[in-house]
């Protein structure tokens, strides 16, 4: 039969049905390596002082207390709302400052607006910024600039910029070439083009991305409050669990964060569906 000449056989003589191309190979290799590393991880974990059965039982009990009997005991509702306000404020400040700075950086990172090597330098710079975890930025700034909201906002600013510059510059790159050329033909300067062509045609888009980052920054601000002493509701969460061991309060604070996070997520989803084509959903 002629068909046999096209068959590929495996070493054991059975007919192979896999295409065996590079893509398949790399995917299989990736999965294999990750599986091996996972097994290694569980072998090398440090299990000091762990009694798994007791731990699971206790966690189940803790979760029950947290979520079924939430209550505030070390501070009142007024204070709670104030602390949430601080967290939102930190998130907002780092987002809005990040957005303004990103706007200018993105102008220099967009390939259709500047030359190649500036784009490259900006991209390398951003890759470095992203590689340092936010909490390290905040803690480093806390010693370098003195503790306080400045350190928190500046620390959170870095990742916001890395995120927004990428989004903004991609938005700028999608601006119709014709508009830019038409303005250039009339002798308009670079700033003129930015203000009259780039900004109006991307404004709602930029705003949507900024809001998406605000959603992320809210969670980051909570984390910075807990891990880097940046204040706000995250710090209260840390105090309630690690200082007072008050599970009910931990539960109530978690609920507050959860509700806000879900509200922000719903708004983000609405914005995404409205302003973004399906291909670039985050």
């Amino acid at each position, binding site marked *: 039969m002629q068909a046999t000449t096209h068959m590929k056989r495996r070493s054991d003589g059975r007919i192979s049905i896999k295409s065996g191309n590079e893509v398949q190979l790399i995917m299989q290799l990736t999965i294999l390596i990750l599986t091996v590393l996972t097994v290694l991880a569980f072998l090398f*974990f440090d*299990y*000091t002082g762990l009694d*798994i059965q007791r731990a699971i039982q206790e966690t189940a009990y803790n979760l029950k207390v947290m979520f079924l009997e939430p209550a505030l005991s070390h501070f009142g509702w007024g204070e709670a709302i104030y602390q949430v306000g601080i967290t939102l404020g930190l998130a907002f400040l780092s987002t809005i400052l990040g957005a303004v700075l990103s706007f200018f950086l993105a102008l220099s990172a967009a390939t259709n607006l500047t030359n190649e090597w500036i784009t490259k330098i900006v991209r390398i710079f951003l890759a470095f910024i992203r*590689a340092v975890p936010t909490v390290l930025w905040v803690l480093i700034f806390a010693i*370098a600039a003195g503790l306080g909201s400045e350190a928190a906002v500046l620390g959170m600013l870095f990742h916001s910029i890395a995120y927004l510059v990428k989004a903004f510059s991609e938005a700028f790159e999608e601006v119709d070439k014709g508009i830019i050329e038409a303005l250039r033909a009339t002798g308009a300067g670079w700033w003129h083009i930015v203000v009259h062509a780039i900004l109006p045609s991307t404004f709602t888009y930029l705003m949507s991305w900024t809001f998406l980052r605000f959603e992320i920054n809210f969670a980051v601000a909570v984390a910075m409050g807990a891990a880097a002493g940046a204040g706000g509701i995250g710090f209260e*969460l840390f105090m309630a*669990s690690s200082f007072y061991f008050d599970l009910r309060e931990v539960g109530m*604070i978690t609920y507050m964060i959860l509700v806000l*996070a879900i509200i922000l997520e719903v708004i983000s989803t609405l914005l995404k569906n409205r302003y973004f084509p399906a291909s670039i959903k985050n």
Partner: protein
Amino acid sequence: MNENRIRYKKNQQMIIVVLLLALVTYLSSVLTDFNILHGLATLPEAFIWIFSNLVVTEESLERMPTILDKLVETILMSIAATTTATILSLFLGVMGSKSVGTSKLLGILARFIASLSRNIPVVAWALILLLSFGQNSLTGYLALFVGSVGFLTRAFIEVIDESSQSAVEALQATGATYIQIIMKAVIPECLPQIISWILFMIETNIRNATLVGILTGTGIGYTFDLYYKTLNYHGVALVTVSIVVAVILIELLSNHVRKVIL
């Protein structure tokens, strides 16, 4: 005329939005006691401090073996959390997807679990787990695991719903079972995207692991915290540099994989 009016209206809207943002910025500054000018003014000073103090010295290099040990532990923890979360998320993703999900009720349940584990911050999970699991790797692993499940489930639902699922109908018509269809048509079709998200999650988790480590006293985060609290800035610098190198290496590697498979 008309065009001018539209442009005028659009400009007006932009101005209103900008003014509103300025107002909220001002309120936030007051609330958090943040001074933008002061904040920006300290930047140069801060950077001078960073460049003169956060330097890797020969003496601090002696600590490299300990740091590397912790770094490897953190990376392994992040990978294990991601891969195990992937397994659960694939189930939830299939359950929650509109195109191949079985029932509405299970779909809602899957989305609910994902939303809960995603929107309760990782720090909260870390703190809760710390109470009973104590100061060991498993605490950090579990905190990252829970967060990853939420994030990956949402990503997988989107991947499945956006990829072409026309083969599902064809396989139903051949008499294939549901599980066969999922494993042999849906998953293979989405695999490159799924792997891409897994790699992204590993990168994210390594950064998050530092945060979780500071809270739970495990991994590289704990090492950083120790040097930080004892004002050993050369140690701080070395830990930071090693994290940066690790993250960038992993990012380069996964970008390479992505380039081939996508």
